């Protein structure tokens, strides 16, 4: 239980210098961001180093941040040192137009399905993955559904007429203009009465 977050940060900074950024400790877990071309080097170093020993890949997934232009997709690795019981989190960012990230399958057999899942939902292209195909969605799907541009329900569907929840309907509820603070604009007030009924 001797490995502290400071030691990890110090060792990583010594080895890789200033390329590692955004050091944070949210809820006690050391988090940092690495350039995407360095991910395998860092994972290998964390695995091999006799003091760090991060040899268990707990989780791997992606997050889509549309507002981070040029680096919209974050791939997040959760690593666990089971000997000292320390966890860390590493993020690499990739542009959504060309989301190529090196695959960790050679280091961790567990990364296989997790990278396939990440590809399936976010379209991250893991370079070097032995079998990068969809895993949970149907093979015919031609988009990556967990990206933020896809709303939860398909807005183009016409078989569901669900006027109360902003889809379809003749009264146009949910599509009305709203002022700051959420109050309805004057001309839609008469619809409000029907809504209560």
């Amino acid at each position, binding site marked *: 239980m001797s490995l502290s977050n400071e030691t990890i940060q110090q060792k990583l900074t010594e080895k890789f210098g200033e390329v590692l950024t955004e050091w944070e400790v*949210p*809820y006690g*877990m050391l*988090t940092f961001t690495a350039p995407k071309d360095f991910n395998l080097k860092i994972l290998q170093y964390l695995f091999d180093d006799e003091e760090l020993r991060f*040899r*268990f*890949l*707990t*989780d791997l*997934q992606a*997050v*889509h941040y549309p507002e981070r232009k040029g680096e919209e997709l974050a791939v*997040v690795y*959760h690593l666990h040192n*089971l000997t000292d*019981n320390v*966890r860390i*989190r590493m993020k690499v960012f990739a542009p959504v137009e060309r989301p190529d990230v090196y695959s960790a399958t050679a280091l*961790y*057999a*567990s990364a*296989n*399905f*997790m990278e396939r*899942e990440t590809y399936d*939902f976010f379209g991250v292209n893991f370079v070097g993955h032995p079998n990068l195909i*969809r*895993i*949970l*969605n149907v093979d015919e799907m031609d988009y990556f*559904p*967990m990206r933020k541009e896809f709303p*939860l329900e398909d807005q183009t569907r016409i078989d569901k007429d669900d006027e109360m929840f902003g889809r379809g309907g003749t009264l146009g509820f949910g599509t009305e203009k709203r002022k700051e603070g959420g109050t309805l604009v004057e001309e839609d007030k008469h619809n409000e009465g029907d809504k209560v009924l």
Partner: protein
Amino acid sequence: MSQSEHILLPEGSLEKQTTTLNLGPTHPATHGVFQNILEMDGERILSAVSTVGYIHRAFEKLAERRPLYQITPITDRLNYCSSPINNMGWHITCERLLKVELPKRVDYLRIIIMELARISDHLICNSIVGVDTGAFSGFLYLMQYRELIYEIYEEICGSRLTTNIGRIGGFERNFTNTAFEKLEKFLKEYPAVLKEFENLFNRNRIFMDRTIGTGPISAERALNYGFTGPNLRAAGVDYDVRVHTPYSSYEDFEFSVPVGTTGDCYDRFLVRNEEMWQSLKLIGDAYKKVQEFKGAEAEVFHADTPAYYLPEKKDVYTKMEALIYHFKIVMGETEIPAGELYSAVEGANGELGYYLISDGGRTPYRLHFRRPCFIYYQAYPELVKNGLLSDAVITMSSLNLIAGELDA
């Protein structure tokens, strides 16, 4: 098995060809929607390709549009053999995000529920391994006690399989006396039944012959494949989230973590059996601690988190503040503090993790479930390779694959 090399077959003869066999997706021996395309040489498996995703329900996408309390029913449907652990894991994640301190009594009640869920999960898994090896009676015998566990759930939350038990900050209501009576009945009767079950199986010649050496995995491979829970412990690694990162006051209890050596079906079976004994001990200890609370303390069943915990109905009708909180919670208008956190509990199958990112809105920005099944299922082709087809069936049931958890 000896090679039959003395038979000289001509090139291209039928016996030299391999057979492709579809095991699943609705095969009666697979207990769930799993498909494996096996390449068979006679009775022997040369390779297996797993297909997953038959019951994918887009839980992570759904969670991005729901307030925290509406995500609990989603977690029910992950590992539906032990839903309460999933529910509690989710509540604990939320409470860590919101920095809510729980009263000790709630923690202990939660331990009782979680360990009951662990027992109900393990007893299904182990008795199904029995069924797949040809011993049906153990299954029928134990099943009665899963029924009793479900009755306890029902007494607490009103439902049995997909429980939606507990709330952020505690429980929806205090445990009734009937619940405690049923719990006492369970604690009194189950040890004898479990002992009987062990007598039926542990030294049973047929059972041992079928399971020893079937689907083994080394500790190193298991770690590399991301195994957690009983399957990892059967391979000899004593990793248990309850001990490594205690939650819900597990640090107040003494219990041991059983480990195996070979990681085969027999070891997994023994580890699960031993874990049931440990869970029984934990439930007994936690129940004793619960009984120590007297007076007003014995009525505590939730923390004071008005912004997330629904107020009592009579207060909603009489108090303005309660009415406001009630409205905000029901309409999902409570803002969640921004933050990023990974929180894990020891599910029945291993480390069940929740990776939650909140941007300060009313719903999570991103929620990812680390489902232990999904991660260790990728080792299945390696486990069954060069084994017999009937062993592949036992290996699958002894891994305790739950389709709901696999496909999220």
